[in-house]
């Protein structure tokens, strides 16, 4: 046997997941340079702990898990995060979204940025990155039901923030659906 164990190093696959890692990092940090620092830390940790990765399982989910754990532990350390989401929104969401049935991207991003991190990650994992509820639950180390409820609460809150409530939904869809939407979008004002 030659020294050339050119058998593919599974770690070489990490590079394929970098775009997704960055996108996930931005959705958590809401800040480009912070996101890239997070990705950098994630790469180093993943590399060093690669022996813990089970071959044949979902590498992306594994990397995402490292990334989010890194994010949350850093966040716990520096509690400088602004907690006032509503105030932040009020100052940034100066204009009402256009009422043409389409959300302006910028408004959406601002609204999205005000959600708690755990809702943002659930929404991104399930709604954008194509993770199943089960994969998202595993990535976040919570029950599937927890992910579902975070997704639902996140969606409801976004709808509320963007004022795409029942009124606007009316323009978008037919009456029976509106009824469903309206009832499902009702924010819970306390458990009855």
């Amino acid at each position, binding site marked *: 046997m030659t020294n050339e164990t050119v058998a593919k190093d599974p770690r070489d696959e990490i590079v394929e997941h*970098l775009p997704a890692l960055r996108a996930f990092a931005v959705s958590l940090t809401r800040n480009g340079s912070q996101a*890239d620092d997070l990705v950098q830390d994630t*790469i180093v940790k993943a590399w060093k702990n690669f022996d813990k990765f089970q071959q044949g399982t979902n590498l992306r989910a594994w990397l995402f898990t490292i990334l989010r754990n890194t994010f949350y532990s850093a966040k716990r350390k520096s509690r400088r995060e602004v907690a006032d989401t509503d105030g932040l929104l009020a100052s940034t969401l100066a204009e009402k979204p256009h009422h043409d*049935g389409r959300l302006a991207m910028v408004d959406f991003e601002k609204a999205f940025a005000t959600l708690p991190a755990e809702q943002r990650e659930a929404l*991104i994992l399930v709604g*954008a*990155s194509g993770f199943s509820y089960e994969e998202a639950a595993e990535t976040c180390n919570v029950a599937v039901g927890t992910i579902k409820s975070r997704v639902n609460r996140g969606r409801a809150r976004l709808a509320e923030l963007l004022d795409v409530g029942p009124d606007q*939904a009316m323009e978008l*869809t037919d009456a029976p659906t509106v009824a469903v939407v309206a009832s499902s*979008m009702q924010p819970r004002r306390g458990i009855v």
Partner: protein
Amino acid sequence: MAQNQPKSSLEELIDDNLRKVYRQVEDEAVPDRFLALLDQLKQQEDPHDK
């Protein structure tokens, strides 16, 4: 949940925007620093490099 229930327009609208936000970043070129970092990590582990 009913099995054949189509996603509501509102839900679609939100998911559509989520995907846009995500893809915006995902479609960017990966910064060189990450490729360099991966190279560096690899080098460190293969001291008997050519």
